[in-house]
């Protein structure tokens, strides 16, 4: 069959199964599904917007019969091209599977569809005394299905753990279009834990059982100012080293604070080299003692000031500006590139030092806003895409940063995954035997690589199918969250 004919055949079969209303095939409609927060993209042959699991199953069967790859898509906030249909095929959007199916407060669990926006779950659970802990900064738009795909984190996974620690079971459509249900309470292999963080390469998840937590009795958010980001990160290492685990420990450097304050006016000190955002939560009895222990360590490590937000509105303003930080960067440079890497927490000062040196070597400005308590760095390299030297330097600096983090005992992704962008970097972390063992899992779930091809595993071969229509390579373009 001619390529055009094959695409038409695929589209016709999808329309017959799902209805014209649920299938997009016009180029202008498909452009939306070509990209995530990574720059390179490619339009799929078709995008489907199923309303239920039967339609997902039908889509998988039809795509398989037509030899078309299948890429599940959440909100497209991932930084690494994990949602990019690099070989075309069918993109499945979960925009219509976005409901809470069950909210079981007595057992502190919920069953949700993958397209549910992360924040909507906590909004529904909070009046009932519970919340959903994973809170990636993108939570206002990113979906729980996407969060499951990348095992997303967020500021509060410091004490509550990442998405995988909150997923109790899944429903997914397998390679044959069969619907499979898993639970961490089932006897047998932990398929749930295997699927979380597998970046859509093992199946299409259609429902998720999640754990809810009881809202803490009291929450405080404290802001400490430091002379520079290395001093702030030394304080973080000391806090963790002292055996204190607050619910969040975030660092924002001066460059980002300036941009954020201009936009949000949350009251971060703009005269400091770096700001440490600390959240503590728990029983009211412990708040004063915990806060004084934290502020003492901060001062011992050079904190210039310490401010406490006790009121909900004040806390929310600080968090809104922290979570919106990347969006405010547009004020600083035409383009920016965000890296996501993780180091052991005691190595934070070394890592920050390395990032600064790398940026200097490549003559680039760098900002830092990151999940310090977890050792999860997010350096933002500022540049102008029109300047060819800068565009090339940014890509080289990104790889240097990953290499430096690996040398410090860290890894190349804390919460965005490997996706398309970092798959050639994965062998820096894992041996061929390690990767071949992971590939055994893929062989079982996805032997023909219909599900999200070109992701996670290094190619070894060409990846010429991906066109970089916006120019540049490996460079985040639009709004991003981190």
């Amino acid at each position, binding site marked *: 069959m001619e390529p055009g004919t094959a695409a038409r055949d695929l589209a016709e079969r999808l329309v017959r199964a799902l209805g014209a209303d649920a299938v997009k095939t016009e180029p202008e409609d498909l452009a939306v599904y070509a990209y995530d927060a990574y720059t390179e993209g490619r339009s799929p042959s078709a995008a489907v917007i199923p309303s239920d699991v039967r339609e997902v199953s039908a889509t998988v069967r039809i795509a398989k019969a037509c030899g078309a790859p299948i890429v599940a898509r959440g909100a497209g906030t991932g930084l690494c091209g994990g949602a990019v249909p690099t070989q075309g095929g069918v993109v499945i959007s979960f925009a219509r599977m976005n409901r809470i199916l069950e909210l079981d407060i007595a057992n502190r669990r919920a069953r949700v569809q993958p397209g549910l926006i992360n924040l909507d779950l906590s909004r529904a659970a909070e009046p009932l005394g519970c919340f959903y802990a994973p809170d990636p900064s993108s939570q206002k738009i990113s979906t729980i299905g996407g969060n499951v795909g990348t095992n997303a984190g967020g500021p509060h996974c410091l004490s509550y753990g990442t998405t995988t620690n909150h997923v109790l079971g899944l429903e997914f459509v397998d390679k044959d279009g069969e619907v*499979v249900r898993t639970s961490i309470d089932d006897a047998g*292999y*932990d*398929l749930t834990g295997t699927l979380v963080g597998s970046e859509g390469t093992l199946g299409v998840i259609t429902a998720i059982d999640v754990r809810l937590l009881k809202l803490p009795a009291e929450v405080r958010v404290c802001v400490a100012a430091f002379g520079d980001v290395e001093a702030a990160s030394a304080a973080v290492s000391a806090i963790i080293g002292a055996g204190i685990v607050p619910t969040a420990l975030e660092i924002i450097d001066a460059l980002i604070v300036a941009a954020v304050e201009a936009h949000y006016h949350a009251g971060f000190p703009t005269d400091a080299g770096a700001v440490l955002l600390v959240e503590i939560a728990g*029983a009211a009895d412990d708040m004063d003692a915990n806060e004084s222990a934290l502020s003492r360590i901060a001062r011992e490590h050079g904190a210039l000031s310490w401010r406490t937000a006790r009121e909900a509105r004040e806390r929310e303003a600080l968090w809104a500006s922290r979570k919106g930080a990347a969006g405010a960067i547009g004020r600083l440079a035409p383009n920016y590139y965000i890296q996501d890497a993780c180091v052991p927490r*005691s190595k934070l000062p070394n890592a920050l030092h390395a990032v600064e040196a790398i940026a200097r070597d490549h003559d680039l400005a760098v900002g830092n806003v990151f999940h310090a308590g977890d050792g999860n760095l997010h350096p933002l390299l500022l540049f102008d895409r029109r300047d060819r030297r800068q565009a090339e330097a940014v890509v080289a600096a990104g790889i240097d940063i990953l290499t430096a983090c690996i040398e410090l005992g860290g890894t190349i992704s*804390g919460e965005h995954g490997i996706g398309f962008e970092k798959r050639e970097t994965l062998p820096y972390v894992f041996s061929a*035997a390690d990767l071949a*063992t992971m590939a*055994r899992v893929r062989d079982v779930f996805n032997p023909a690589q219909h599900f999200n091809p070109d992701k996670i595993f290094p190619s070894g071969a060409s990846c010429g199918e991906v066109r970089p229509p916006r120019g540049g390579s490996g460079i985040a373009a639009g709004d991003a969250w981190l």
Partner: protein
Amino acid sequence: MPQRVAAPGDVDALAAELRESDGRGEAVVLFGGGTLQRLGAAPSRFDVAVDLRRVAGIVTYEHHDLTISVRAGTTLGALARALARHGQFVPLDAPFPARGTVGGALAGGWLGPRRGAYGRPRDLVIGSTAVLADGTVAKAGGMVVKNVSGYDMSKLYAGSLGTLAALAVVNFKTLPIPQAQRAAIAALPDGTRERAIAHVRGLEMEPTVALAVRGFHEVGGTDGSDGRLLLVYEGSAATVDRATRELRSALGAAGVPATTIVDRGAGDALQRAIDACVTPLAERSATYRWLGLPSDAEARCAGVGRVARRHDLTCETMCDVRNGDIIARASAPDRDAFAARIVLLDEAFHDAYGRIVLLSSPDAVRDRLDAWGPPPASLATMRALKERFDPRGTLAPGRFVGGI
């Protein structure tokens, strides 16, 4: 009985042992401290016992990072002692820590009663090195607390009961030991159980552990006609103090006259409850675990007791009010009576309750009991994983779910 016992001294020797056994078509059963060896069905073939206890010791302990890497044969007790020197712990909460190993607790899919507060053992694992049946040594994860680099293989190995790979090294995130720990034990007079549990559930300060116990006298405490409660609180001295005060008055209001507070020895009481989950009564008992929702745990627990009594077996239970687990130990006064009755009870349990599994049973009846009950709907995928990881069926064939 195996023809041979091998005790490799390090990861390379373990890899060589598995590769050679696999090449010869021998079936291998992995051993740690033997505390969970009765989990699952008896293997259908068993040629070589591979004792992992010499693959032991701490690889690195980055106490400032709250991370540790240990070899899988390290005992739970040795791990706990090393961590305690820096005021830290990893709440695996598996039985008999002096003998039980890290790898055994993880591979056995052990679930302790503090997991509602601290997570399941699999949630504390940040990386691992495993040896596959063909001798492949494969790492996954690392020594950082957030990591989305490749598949989370450690989750697959945890709970696989040594049928996919041998865990050789496990990396954990550690936690600071809470400042205070206190147990509360209260005998429940007739008719108070339901209200007492409801009152405990309604408390603002949640207990770290909340067990409603009947029998299991080795745990300590005395049953009232409605059994007894064993609660453990952990946290700051101030919160634990307030929590136990509020508990006392809540239990008083529920008609429970006396609550005994255990300060020193609270950890021992908790450990005794964990040990009891796999402790048999001399060849005349079998112990089951049934995972389910907390909201109907009490009703399920009562149901298990009724079914056992209908089969003329005594049933001791521990109902985990917080997590929803039921541990049930069915016994008869003597071996013969037990052997005559347990097979029918086993069938009745599996017919009535899908997710009930056998934790421990005497050798004399093990082959006649169904360790796993009906397999989960995802069995075909699980079989395919086994086939891909262990195509020759070298690792404990037949021990796992659905004959895997």
